[in-house]
């Protein structure tokens, strides 16, 4: 898949750090594992949540991804640690969804963020609910891109790399998804 030079450079530098941390862990440095975990757990969790629709299942998926990484033969480490983690989450979530047939679905995707002193809130609890509902209604491929971009702190290039889809596709999925959420927001925020 073709990448922009910037995306490629970002990925590469991330990867160098990931491989370094993994090697340190292999030598017995548990703090390196903590660091590796901290680097990706948020994005992984958001991704897992967008796929599994269940906070508890998302936790399990993140846990599994890391354990799979650690069990991997040290002489054959994954070429890209972050891609490996996201792939495990996707495959495991697919298996689980097939088994559960999405019988348990969460509609509480997002919550109001903590109030900051002196900054007035624009969203009500009802708005948060409405956005949760709108997110749940998005097609899977739009939802995962929107959630990774907005709440997983990933750029579109990184998302394209992780999902193994062209950048343009990711960008259009994001645009469609975010516009649908915008439509909900406009209704909610109208005076």
């Amino acid at each position: 898949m073709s990448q922009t030079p910037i995306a490629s450079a970002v990925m590469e530098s991330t990867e160098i750090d990931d491989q370094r941390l993994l090697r340190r862990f292999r030598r017995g440095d548990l703090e390196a594992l903590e660091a590796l975990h901290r680097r990706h757990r948020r994005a992984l969790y958001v991704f897992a949540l967008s796929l599994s629709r269940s906070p508890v299942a998302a936790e399990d998926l993140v846990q599994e991804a890391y354990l799979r990484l650690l069990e991997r033969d040290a002489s054959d480490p994954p070429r890209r640690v972050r891609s490996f983690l996201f792939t495990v989450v996707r495959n495991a979530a697919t298996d689980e969804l097939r088994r559960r047939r999405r019988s348990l679905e969460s509609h509480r995707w997002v919550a109001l963020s903590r109030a900051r002193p002196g900054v007035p809130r624009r969203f009500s609890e009802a708005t948060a609910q409405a956005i949760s509902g709108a997110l749940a209604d998005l097609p899977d491929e739009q939802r995962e891109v929107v959630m990774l971009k907005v709440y997983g702190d990933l750029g579109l290039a990184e998302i394209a790399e992780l999902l193994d889809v062209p950048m343009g596709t990711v960008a259009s999925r994001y645009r469609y998804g975010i516009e649908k959420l915008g439509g909900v927001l406009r209704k909610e925020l109208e005076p």
Partner: protein
Amino acid sequence: MTSEEIERLLKSELDIPVPEDRLSERLRAELRRRPAADLGGDAVGRPAQQRFFTRWGVVAAASMLAVVFGLVVTRPHGEEPDARPAAQARAESDVRAREWIERLRSENGLERDEARRRLKEMGRAALPELAKAIHDRDPEVAGAAREIRRFIEISGILTAPLLRAMPGLQERLAAGDDRLWCRTVIAAAAVDAEGRRVHPELREEDLDPLLGRAVRGAQSPPERLELCQAIVRLGLRQGIPELVKLLSDDDVVLRWKGAELARLKALAEAIPALRTLLADKEPAVRGSAIRALGELGDRASAPGLRRLLDDAAVAGIAAEALARLGVADAVPQIVEVLDRGDAAARSGALRALTRLGCRAVIPKAVVLLHDQDSTVRFDAAQALSVLDAREAVAEIIRRLREESPHRSLLIRALGALGAREAIPEIRRFLRSKDAGDRMEAASALARLGALEAASDLTPLLHDSDPLVRGNALLALGSLQARSAAPEIALLLRDPQPEFRRRSLEALRKLGARETASEVRALLSDSDDGIRLEALTVLGDWGLENPTPGLLRFLKHGDPEVRRSAASGLGRLGRREAIPALLPLLQDPYDLARLAAAVELCRLGSNKAAPAILQLASEEPPRTAYPWCLLHLNLLRQPEAWRKLGKPLTVELQGSNLEVLSEIAKQAGLPLKGLEDLSREDQAWLSLPCNLWSRHPGQPLGDVLASVLGPLSAVVERDRIRIVPRKDALAFWRSWWEQSDAGREK
């Protein structure tokens, strides 16, 4: 709002709460749980994964991960064997169960729901920790643990068919008391308005595990009765003791209905209790017990039953039970009941003596043709007919001339006895002022084959009484009175659909093609059933291709129309109708299923076999079901069965055995298997045949089907094997399972 603005707002105002601390803690806990050498901490440079798999083996490692990762790889209980050492597997299950039990305390409702679900998924592996959690200080956790434990225990006994039939049953039973178990068993046995089970797919093994608590949960007498009725319908052998208990209940209704259920189910276990009920103070209970013992064939109860011939309230029932048991030496006592009993007793005694083939009753039966009670009069006529009391013909004719007040049954008896010498006398009654006389005279003349009376019968087509008109129509059709065809065709315009339908039927029997234009007019009749009949008649005469029309009628909203269409297609022998008939095997109306199955047999399609076997196994059995079983002979031995398509050439008379032998003789297929029948079946064969339709012209197969009673027939290439019905069903099931089509199925 631009995309950037929307994103900024979503980011600043909302958040996805990521449980970062818990994610880290879970990973740390997992690392602590595993041996240091398995993951990381490599002192000697060996690959971590290699050591990990060497220690437990690949399967063991996969199983461990399965337990550790819960959601992703946790399997439902019992799906695969666990290769790990049992103690370790248990320890790991306990850890996981504790984790989920902890989450039952969460303030997040979704998390608590998920924990519930996971514990339920763990199944029995979660039970040890749940047992501890039941005593938790937090009443909500304790309550949830109790409910989950109940759910897991219940899941172990509920079968897949039961869960499919009653979705969510685990949850309901886990939250409910014993009474709910009782209601569940009752609901599983529910029947629709036609008496068919709503859940026919549920079998004994699905409901048996629920029965213990269901019995405890039956609180009121009506509920106990309902449960016992369900036990009978579902064939729950484990429920038999509960059913037997009804027979000694203080509640008279339970004793009474219990005896009825024991009779219906032929419960041999109930015989001792039923014998006790012969002395019950309630006549209704005594009556039910007597009937049950008679039908159960309990000859040991014969002395008790004979004593009850002196009990005015149940004497007739006791007489019939004794006859059923074949207690021939009770005849003198039963004859006494004829003289002194009330109408019910006289009627029962008449039927008993008829069943026992007691010809000594004939003179009394002639007298009883004048009885005050209509049932007694009817039974007397039936007795004379079944006993073939030709010696009474002269006396009956004499009484007929005496202007008896109850002439109609005398006329009926003469018809049934084949008394052609009475034809002139009977013709006189076609002009009687009494509609009953006119009606019976028309029928009797038809039975006597009195074609010479057609000219007197024809005016009755315009009789003021609809029943007389109907009987005249049938009689003229049956007598093949072609001269009456123009008059019958006039009735095709009768305002009542029933007369239009019967007229069509009569014209079809007469082969009156000259009335085709009148029949064709009915193709646009307002009544769908009539249009269908008209189409079939024209098809029979080769004047119309009825197939496309009949195929359309197979999808009609009226089940009777669907049934008639199926019959029509089968009768026409249109093999192209087979694909259209197949969906009818799933029709909600049982007679439509029956017609489709039989017609498919006629058309040589073995796809009918499973439907016929299903119909013949249904409880309670319908009269038509044993008849449909016979049609499987069409698939197995079509050539031999065709011999039974010939018309009967003589009037059938004598015992059941004699009638069967005559049918076999005319078909050229000797009877076999009679010597292997039980004593009861042999006794039945020796009884007089009480078949009403025994006159020539009917196909031998149809007569055979009507005369078989408790028996069935398997037609072989060179013989007819007579077997008990239940053995016949087992035979046909085995035949189907061993056939190519059955094996494919």
